[in-house]
């Protein structure tokens, strides 16, 4: 029980509950199940991208190109829709395209050994630039999209829109991936101690590449969801969203130095940001406060995470071993 209370995830969950209670005290309607479902739906893209980012960060890399990837694949999805391509084919294409864009990052990191932050800083502008080259900067608007294309994320299934179910599905898949597959565990091994990973026969570069591919595929998928949901595609959609995604991971306790982090933490980090974004306008706090509040939340979260890490130093004295 005490160890449960100490865990990062439990504290984050508590923080979310307190946040909700505070909001509810000023605006009870916010915590109605219907509205909470709305908040979750709204946060779905952030959750999906944050899970992809988590996998990358766990391997000690970072992917700053996710938002650009999303924008590019989203635009392609809208253009394919305009050309009359059926929806299932569009979905397959965006996922494959997203994965390919991720693979480009991964290959540069793996084969040329360029630090991931440099690679993705570069590809971030390149991917966005490609949208401009494809479209001349033109928007694709709601009336240029078919109803079926726009409807999928909105369809209600068991009380929740498909968009939200997609996030749930990605959460479940990621849990299985990181907890129950060899590749998932390899992410942690590579990020935790690359040197030791070699001793256990895990290829560091290949594993990092796999992480980028996953992150890219999820970004591609989110690209469709985003464009269909907001019914618009243009160069700048989701501009700057990569930093929200990284922030969600940081709040969720994913160690930026690699090797540690949980799906639950990551999802709650995303929810925490999502609730703040949705609640501020509702509670009547000026929207101008939003940025400062999320900044403060990030700082508090990392200060907290580092405090939780326990004493440094080797354990030599017998009595110091195994303390809970």
């Amino acid at each position: 029980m005490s160890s449960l209370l100490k865990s990062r995830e439990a504290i984050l969950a508590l923080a979310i509950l307190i946040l909700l209670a505070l909001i509810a005290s000023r605006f009870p309607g916010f915590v109605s199940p219907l509205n909470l479902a709305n908040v979750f739906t709204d946060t779905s893209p952030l959750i999906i991208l944050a899970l992809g980012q988590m996998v990358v960060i766990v391997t000690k890399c970072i992917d700053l190109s996710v938002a650009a990837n999303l924008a590019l694949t989203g635009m392609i999805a809208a253009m394919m829709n305009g050309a009359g391509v059926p929806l299932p084919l569009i979905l397959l294409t965006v996922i494959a395209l997203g994965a390919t864009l991720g693979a480009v990052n991964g290959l540069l990191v793996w084969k040329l050994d360029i630090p991931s932050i440099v690679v993705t800083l570069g590809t971030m502008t390149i991917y966005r630039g490609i949208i401009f080259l494809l479209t001349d900067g033109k928007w694709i608007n709601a009336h240029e999209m078919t109803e079926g294309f726009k409807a999928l994320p909105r369809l209600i299934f068991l009380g929740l829109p498909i968009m939200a179910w997609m996030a749930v599905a990605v959460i479940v898949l990621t849990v299985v991936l990181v907890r129950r597959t060899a590749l998932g565990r390899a992410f942690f091994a590579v990020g935790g101690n690359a040197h030791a990973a070699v001793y256990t026969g895990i290829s560091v570069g290949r594993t990092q590449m796999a992480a980028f591919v996953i992150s890219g595929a999820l970004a591609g998928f989110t690209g469709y969801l985003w464009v269909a949901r907001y019914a618009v595609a243009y160069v700048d959609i989701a501009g700057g969203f990569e930093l929200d995604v990284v922030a969600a991971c940081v709040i969720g306790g994913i160690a930026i130095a690699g090797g540690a982090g949980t799906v639950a933490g990551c999802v709650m980090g995303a929810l925490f940001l999502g609730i703040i974004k949705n609640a501020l306008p509702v509670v009547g706090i000026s929207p101008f406060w939003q940025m400062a509040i999320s900044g403060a939340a990030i700082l508090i979260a990392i200060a907290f995470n580092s405090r939780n890490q326990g004493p440094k130093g080797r354990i030599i004295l017998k009595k110091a071993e195994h303390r809970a």
Partner: protein
Amino acid sequence: MQAQPASGTTPPVLSLRGISKSFPGVRALNGVQLDLFPGQVTALIGENGAGKSTIVKILTGIYQPDEGSIAIDGRPVQFPTAQAAGDAGVTAIHQETVLFDELTVAENIFIGHAPRTRLGLIDWAAMEAEARRLLTSIGANLDPKVRLRDLGIASKHLVAIARALSIDARVVIMDEPTAALSHKEIHELYELVETLKAQGKAILFISHKFDEIFRIADRWTVFRDGQFIAEGHITDVTEGQLVQMMVGRSVDQIYPKRPARIGNPVLTVSGYCHPTEFEDIGFTLHEGEILGFYGLVGAGRSEVMQALFGITKPSKGACRIGNDIRVIRSTAQAVEAGIVYVPEDRGKQGAVKGLPIFQNVTLPSLSRTSKGGFLRLSEEFRLARDYTQRLDLRAASLDQDVGLLSGGNQQKVVIAKWLATRPRVIILDEPTKGIDIGSKAAVHDFMSELAAQGLAVIMVSSEIPEVLGMSDRVIVMREGRIAAEFAGDAMTPENLVRAAVGIEEGEAA
């Protein structure tokens, strides 16, 4: 002695021929050979840096040999990755415990080959049960669910042993497996070796301890300076002969200890404590004295020295330097007070790879070589040249990157760096670890010279001959505490080992 053909009738399971491996600046292995036989323990013997661990890494797919061939059951094989070696039935307990601090004990044992459910997913329950069984079989009472970070070095080493055993192998390699273990655990390990032998596995056993070599080995192989020297049956050889082959000359020449005049106390430490690392450390060091610190790997000697040097802060205790009582809070303060530390981990803590040699040497002396905070390269160069020449450094030029030097030469740069600050107390942590015989002699020579000039020296070493040959007095540490202190005639190998492993006087060794 000649390389004899394999023992009797059984052919070797694994045999190496003509293996060479070079690193920048070092030829670690030069055309060596090695044979391992089923149901037999082969001891690989050689000085530090002879290339023993390098051969282990080649056998486990971590390094690729530059030349030579590996054969299993007479068929040539290649190990491009650690996975490939495991699949071919070779498993190893490595000298350094390379494991994952953030993962649990069970995962550390099974990462890469975890039990799966029918769906192909990792079966955590089976993994933990299996881990518990393996740990129990080697007498380790560890919870498989505990994170590795929360364990001490000995327990981590047990996990590494369990990991090696979790692979169903025909060849088991143990690189100094007992170095980090306590008395009881060592005995369990010996029993384990017997069991493995009985199962017909071929075992390669690397150790510097002759008592255990004679106790468990069936065969021996000696390497020296990366070369194969000889091999044979353990029954046909004596300890003296092995040492002779290992070192290539008689042993007592190596330690040129000059008698020094022991003067006033310069450093008195009392009651130093740390929450996890050490407890109740106290001793006095005098001018001109060389004080040896002996102990098993992980006994906490380095940690104590680092506390003296201001890297970590003791939770209790104080020290007196000359006549001032003070607590050292940072390395900068230690350097000001005249205490300097040549660290054990040269790569991480000593040399700044990526920077040229002269910049490494002048690093702590910049206040002397610079003027008003501005660098003066000519002064730096002069200082660096003075001290590197005195230590007989070999390098192409002083603005060569330190990372390109051989280990021994790197060590010389680090020692030069500290001597250039003209300290009162120099702490040398494993000063000759991994450096060649020639450099070793140079370092020992220099140490004696320094002591003769009145410098107080603390030498941490795990090599008994070195400790006995160089020290005026020896302190032995065990599990973070001072276990004993010896001087004069009490400084015998037996006493040191007893105190280090914790055997009471009279108990059979």
